[in-house]
């Protein structure tokens, strides 16, 4: 897989994870999709920490994509 394709996929994953984070912050546990960790019927609490975790990993995906599409070779270290 070329670095650019990999970067695009990882960036897409980053977008999804940040969207997931927003869902965690906005919706109470009862309104989360049933396949989300933390879904709990009848619960009014918000899973803020789950949202933070998703946001941080999403941000990490963007950073990874940023470096992956940067200059590939490093200049030699000064002697």
């Amino acid at each position: 897989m070329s670095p650019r394709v990999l970067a695009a996929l990882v960036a897409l994953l980053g977008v999804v994870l940040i969207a997931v984070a927003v869902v965690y912050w906005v919706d109470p546990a009862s309104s989360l999709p049933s396949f989300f960790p933390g879904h709990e019927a009848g619960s009014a609490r918000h899973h803020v920490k789950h949202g933070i975790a998703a946001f941080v990993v999403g941000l990490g995906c963007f950073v990874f994509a940023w470096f992956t599409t940067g200059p590939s070779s490093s200049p030699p270290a000064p002697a």
Partner: protein
Amino acid sequence: MVHDRPVEQPAGTGLARPLHPISYLQGALLGLLQGVAEPFPVSSLGHGVVMPRLLGWDIHQNDKFFLTFLVATHFATAIVLFGFFFRDWMRILKGIGRSLRDRQIRDDDSDARLGWLLVVGTVPAGVLGLVFEHPLRSLFASAASAAAFLIVNGLLLLLFERFRQQAPRPDDHLGDSDERIARLSWRQAVGVGSAQAIALIPGISRSGITMGGGILFGLSNEDAARYSFLLATPIIGAAAALKLPELLGPVGNGVRGPALVGAVCAGISTYLAVKFLLRFFETNRLTPFGIYCIVAGITFSAIFALGG
């Protein structure tokens, strides 16, 4: 030992609750303990769980007020660690900024590489901590369990020393401490960082795990300690900052005074402990702490088994 604590009677409820669930003296002692035990590889959480039980205090690690109190002491620890390594953090943050601007982490930019090693070590630990903190704390909440895990921690420290790699020597010309730490691989940094999550179990030391990971991957004790302290700052600071609203909100009522005293004590003792440890590890190893944890764990376990 039973402590007389002032009690208020909420109007109309008929229920009594302590005005100060933690006394100022308890706050000061717990703060001093936290400040010393956080950088030392002996588990601050484990000692924080065991000490109230040994002294007969009515404080348990899952009490809401105790968790709120701990926010203050951890926040103080993080601020002191950040202040202690302030110049290093400024270099590291500039390095991260440079690498983002250039879109590459240059081999000769040890500040940037060290910064990203700290990031990749912190993120998995932070995510694992967010997800598993509550279940792990609930599962291993008892003082007896903390004492048992202290023994495990001691054995781990001895094993780290037993299986250590040859650390660089001054004549290896591998640069200063940060340059040597920056030679860790990404995989090693993720491994050491993720392993910090094990320290959510009271009795297992976060700094012990990170120092041990460092020496397993070829760092000297001094460099491993420095790496451990740098790695501790963002994770302790972020965890405390996340819960700071609890201390400032209604849950913090009756705790804020003792928490402030505890935070000051934790700050002072953290500073002294870090200063001591950086000098100690210039010539010493983890072994004394491993032996201490085993002896303390066995002693505490015996006391608890005998009904103490």
